[in-house]
């Protein structure tokens, strides 16, 4: 296998998995977060405790879960609890180090929209809604976003705030808010006084201009901008052979 032959999605997934280094308890969301966290557990972080909002703590899934409520999450898990226990004691109790979230729209402060495109009362597109994302964004110590960078996703103002990003008033928000945005074309952080999204890494072949073209506000660029690190042969093998043999996420 040639490690130059990887898709933008695979670049995003392995970068998200690597970002979990040093975390112990990760709250796993549906879709891309699911495959990234499972990759982390199978590569550099076997001790990672995967928490799913369906009520699973310490999941060791034998297959890539089809959803966050897959029965493979139950079998061989450390504990399976009610959703009341999960949200009250694990999440609100402050035990979650990091959570991965995605969304249809994000703004420069990391506010996420997963509810509607257009007006709430007469939506152009009705999206799934919060699920657990709203309270996850508020209670997890750190939030990593994982989503594709494409036109109309990175907007100056989201149509609806489903999950809060960095706000001036942190009262009522015990968690630390968004720290990283991991995409298929670039990586961003919020490590500045204004907590504004900043371009820190770009995929090979991308430029600041090509990224800016799909971002709806004048982008801050890190003075130490560098290339995203490509997947290793081993990471690609786990993704392709173990986690996603049908290529759903390629």
């Amino acid at each position, binding site marked *: 296998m040639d490690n130059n032959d990887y898709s933008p999605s695979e670049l995003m997934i392995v970068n998200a998995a690597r970002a979990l280094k040093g975390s112990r308890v990760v709250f796993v969301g*549906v879709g891309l977060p699911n495959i990234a966290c499972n990759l982390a557990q199978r590569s550099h972080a076997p001790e990672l405790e995967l928490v799913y909002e369906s*009520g699973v703590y310490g999941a060791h899934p034998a297959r890539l879960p089809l959803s966050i409520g897959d029965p493979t999450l139950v079998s061989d898990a450390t504990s399976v609890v009610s959703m*009341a226990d999960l949200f009250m004691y694990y999440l609100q109790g402050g035990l979650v180090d990091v959570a991965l979230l995605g969304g249809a729209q994000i703004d420069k402060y990391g506010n996420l929209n997963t509810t509607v495109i257009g007006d*709430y009362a007469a939506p152009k597109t*009705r999206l799934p809604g*919060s699920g657990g994302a709203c309270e996850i964004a508020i209670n997890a110590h750190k939030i990593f976003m994982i989503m594709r960078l494409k036109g109309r996703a990175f907007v100056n103002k989201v149509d609806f705030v489903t999950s809060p990003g960095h706000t001036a*008033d942190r009262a009522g928000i015990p968690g630390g808010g968004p720290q990283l945005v991991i995409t298929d074309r670039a990586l961003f952080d919020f490590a500045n006084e204004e907590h504004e999204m900043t371009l820190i890494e770009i995929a090979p072949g991308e430029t600041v201009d090509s990224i800016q073209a799909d971002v709806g506000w004048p982008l801050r660029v890190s003075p130490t901008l560098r290339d995203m690190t490509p997947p290793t042969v081993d990471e690609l093998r786990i993704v392709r052979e173990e986690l996603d043999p049908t290529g759903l996420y390629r």
Partner: protein
Amino acid sequence: MNELAGTSSSPKVMDMATAVSRFVAGGSVVAIEGFTAFICFAAAHEIIRQGKKDLTLVRMTPDLVYDQMVAAGVARKMVFSYLGNPGVGNLHCIRRAVEKGIPQPLELEEYSHFGMVGRYIAGASKLPFFPLRSYTATDLPKANPDIKFLHNPYGEDEIAVVPPINPDVAFLHAQRADAQGNTQLWGLLGMQKEVAFAAKKVVIVVEEIVAEDIIRRDPNRTLIPGLVVDAVVVEPYGAHPSYVQGYYDRDNTAYLEWDKMSRDQASTEAWLQEWVYGVPDRGVYLEKLGKERLATLAPGELWADGVNYGRYA
């Protein structure tokens, strides 16, 4: 199963048609719960067949089950927290109802997952509201004025609160119960216990009915006591195409097919005609599905060890 001691003499044991006609009225607030697992499609299909109207459907994740009910025109309103085909994509019928009013408009009342769990807890424990750390700096309270903030009487901050909910009837699927409705469930516990205590009437639907002594040998596994159960319906594979831990896996093909087929109201209605109106009950649905299809859903075995509760005579 009917030979089991107590089964035939328990007035709670009935078939699905009887349970639905007895406990679901036009305009009822109905909760068919279960998070990804234990979703009682058998109950939903019978509600559709009986032509119930103007229902308020309560469920954290509407899933295919409410997509089908909305397409069939039984619902006026939906209370929920995540509107998706889990692991697949969108729920096209609900979107069609919300965006275009087809086959009829659908009113939405939405919360987050924790908010819905909190509503069930408040409903079950007769509290006026449930406080939670959520909703701060979001647009959800604007979309739903029942999400409010209260001043913390012991501090300087504010806390979000959600109102209790007490559905008229809940349909809750599980692995097994006795004839009195003492229900054991393992796997994703979801919110099944909270809903059972919150709902005014509870219909338990099980893969198997078992003798009372099976239940009492493992009391920690009894999630719902018969005390709050009004009916027990035995309906093997009643949660297909969702799953029951240890009994059958999710029929993911059905979830993927629904994603394609449900994009159009006409093809959705053809599906409902074939699989819901066109079959008299769950037994015929399963025959139509076929033994081979069901056999592909069988999981391997992974048994827990028994524990010693001790005998203290």
